[in-house]
């Protein structure tokens, strides 16, 4: 049986990128400003992580205008949904195994 850490994708297994995918998992699309505020990030930091996710085809970025105001909307791709679900399942499995191993370790010491 493989260890759950082997199932974790380096692109997704990172707190900011996982946070971005978590937001996008709950909505058809979110605006850049909402992501920045929800995840408490600077614009530059968010942009860098979005670029990584876009290059991995986990999100799609749509840039446009609402009146004269520039708006950037981000949505998750099916691959992104799948990667997020896999990451969450991996994290839960890691915690479950650690919880199971915990009492045994304690009794052995």
């Amino acid at each position, binding site marked *: 049986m493989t260890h759950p*850490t082997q199932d974790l994708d380096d692109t997704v*297994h990172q*707190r900011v990128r*996982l*946070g971005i*995918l*978590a*937001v996008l*998992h*709950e*909505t*058809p*699309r*979110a*605006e850049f*400003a*909402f*992501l920045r*505020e*929800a*995840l408490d990030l600077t614009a530059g930091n968010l942009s860098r992580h979005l670029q990584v996710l876009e290059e991995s085809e986990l999100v799609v970025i749509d840039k446009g205008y*609402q009146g004269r105001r520039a*708006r950037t*909307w981000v949505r998750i791709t099916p691959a992104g949904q799948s990667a997020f679900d896999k990451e*969450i399942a991996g*994290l*839960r499995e*890691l*915690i479950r195994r*650690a919880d199971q191993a*915990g009492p045994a370790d304690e009794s052995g010491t």
Partner: protein
Amino acid sequence: MDDAEASAHELLGLAEAAQRRTREARRGRFWFPLVLFGALVIAAAPWYHQSQSTSRSCQVGLCPVRIPAGTTHGATVYWTVAVILGYAATLGYYRWRATRVGVASRVWPYLAVGFGLFAAVAVVTLPGDLSIRGMVPLLALVPGLFVLAWLERSLPLATFGALFLAVALISNLYDVENQTPLIGWTPSAEWSLLPNLWLSGFTLLLGGLGFALATVPQRRRRTG
């Protein structure tokens, strides 16, 4: 707790918090279609005026079944226009809120189910009596409410949907005018369908206003 487990706990907590925050940001929009369709149902009253000469009919196996006489085609036209405008306005409102808050909501399944069911009702009941007491369009609104409750993950809306199902069935199957004297209102024979119509209309309207008032503190918390 080792580093990997601590990190897993932290990441999971972070993801869940982000999901919770997003759900809160897109919550509380469904009051709009409730209020809108409540108003549209109430405003349908003129199409439910019955002339005495043709006010009774024995159709669909339930006798006597009264249908809005002489104006039945008018009612079908009214409902068709009202339903199209209602769902279009709902889409517009959801888009406007998405732009304002920065988070979109899934609303297309609600629009598709609501409009699809009404179109089916309109086609099945053509040439225009809209079947039992002319109130079947009220029943066509119900599945849409359950779809919306599922999309919004809202138990209160699902509960309201069940309540509205009961109310819409009463509007379709019972002469509500039998009970209106209890509140001091005895409609004339020409307007005897009005209590049926307005029972459902005001249920939607007041339910929508209740949900709107309940979401005001949440919106203030988010913007404050």
